[in-house]
């Protein structure tokens, strides 16, 4: 009897221990995993789905990076050897979710290959071929939105009045993704500012401009879309723009009742004459 009691106590103790250790491990593991996916400053390959889903989907096979590395256009014309590819697979110390593909424009930008070798090879759906295809179903790299180029005008020497259009000329979509805006230079009275302006409806975020920028640290750089872009919200509508009005077609007016408004509508209160 005593031994069976002992055994039971031992069993309960080991079970508790297992459960406790499992819970501890689970908590540590969750905490760590949550931490490592936190880095938002990352540029993904063309066609990458929303970052949050990308982190779930990418199975870390590296097929995209291998396709980029071995694409025909990656051969150095002088040596005949292949150069470093655009896409890197995150390793320890890169501070990105380990094993996922990303690129750093100042190291190697994306050359916006017409045949986009990196996308169709993705087996998981982390890179969505449809998002970089046109209506006819053909691959169209201009549709990719890896990020958005942003100009820091204080360090861009074109904004100082010095002539530079390096980014403009580097852009595969020059004249569309980057345009040059002319302004008279009042300081000298006889020169023109030639300012690079990026248009987010066209810019793919390839980073060729960032790689080409002549300043010590690029004055034009690509940021992930979620970081580079603001959101005006639904209550600001371009009344003069049919497309923008369509955005709020299904919006419902929501009426809230407060201490002040419960007596009547705001309009009624404003028109009641009490104001004067």
């Amino acid at each position, binding site marked *: 009897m005593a031994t069976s009691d002992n055994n039971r106590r031992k069993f309960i103790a080991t079970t508790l221990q297992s459960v406790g250790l499992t819970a501890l491990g*689970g908590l540590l593991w969750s905490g760590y995993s949550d931490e490592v996916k936190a880095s938002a400053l990352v540029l993904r390959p063309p066609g990458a789905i929303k970052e949050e889903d990308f982190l779930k*989907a990418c199975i870390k096979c*590296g097929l995209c990076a291998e396709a980029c590395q071995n694409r025909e256009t990656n051969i150095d014309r002088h040596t005949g050897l292949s150069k470093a590819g655009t896409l890197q697979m995150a*390793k*320890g110390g890169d501070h990105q979710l380990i094993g996922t593909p990303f690129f750093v424009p100042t190291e190697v930008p994306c050359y916006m290959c017409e045949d986009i070798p990196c996308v169709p090879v993705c087996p*998981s759906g982390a890179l969505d071929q449809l998002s970089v295809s046109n209506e006819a179903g053909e691959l169209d790299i201009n549709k990719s939105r890896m990020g958005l180029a942003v100009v820091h005008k204080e360090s861009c020497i074109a904004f100082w009045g010095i002539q530079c259009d390096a980014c403009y000329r580097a852009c595969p979509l020059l004249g569309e993704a980057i345009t040059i805006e002319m302004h008279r230079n009042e300081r000298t009275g006889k020169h023109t500012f030639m300012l690079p302006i990026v248009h987010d409806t066209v810019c793919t975020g390839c980073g060729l401009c960032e790689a080409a920028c002549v300043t010590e640290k690029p004055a034009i750089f690509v940021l992930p879309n979620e970081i580079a872009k603001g959101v005006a919200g639904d209550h600001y509508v371009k009344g003069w723009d049919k497309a923008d009005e369509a955005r709020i077609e299904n919006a419902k007016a929501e009426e809230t009742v407060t201490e002040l408004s419960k007596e009547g509508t705001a309009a009624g209160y404003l028109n009641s004459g009490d104001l004067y």
Partner: protein
Amino acid sequence: MKNIKYLLLRRVTQIGILLLYFGANAYGWSILSGTFGSSLLFGSVPLADPYTTLQVLATGFVLGSDVLLGAAIITLFYFVVGGRAFCSWICPINMVTDLANWLRRKLQLDKEQTTHRFLKRKARYWIMVLGLIVSAVVGIAAFEVLSPITIMQRGIIFGFGAGVSVVIAIFLFDLFGVKNGWCGHLCPLGASYSLIGKASLIRVDHDHEACTNCMKCKVVCPESHVLHMVNKESIMVTDGECTNCGRCIDVCGDDALKFSIRNYLKKEQ
């Protein structure tokens, strides 16, 4: 030569496979490209690791059919060749932990084999399930965040970076910490292949008549408990934790162990 036949074959396979993966990136070979998570064989046949696939599915992401098909092909393959054949014939970490284990024997570090109260061989199954739960809760494939297996493989293909520390940690843990600590107690990937191995066709067969009870096999086996039948019964090693490494067959001087095919039609004695 006889007592390292399978060992040699395994090393050739392991290194050969890594070379193919390496060449796919470095030279554009298309025999075997990708990584264990998901690969392409001959540029067309998809392969995918079942446990990695399950982790991604657990996050709630609806995976592409290539990965699902790939996972089915791999499951079927290891159902034939023995689940943890992945461990001993493919996985690069196996070379690290085998080296640690060999050094342990040479340095006589495991003279007194202690039972580790906190670390049981069953722990890996808990970790395997936990990995799926954490994947679901956090929304990323949780084991892939720290898997030394793919970190080492990607290290070889794309460059190591700081990832090499994980591999060194495993080596030190197995050498100075727990005997067979990683592969035999913790690795959830090995655990998932153990489950496939439970039903696998190719298994080690023991001939109790020929056995002289020298116990060399049990000394060399990384999962020695699976050899419980040695010198007792003439049955097969049916435990999924056997890695089909063939070391026991190599070291057996009496031909009492050999690879054989499990016969499901014949009633198991």
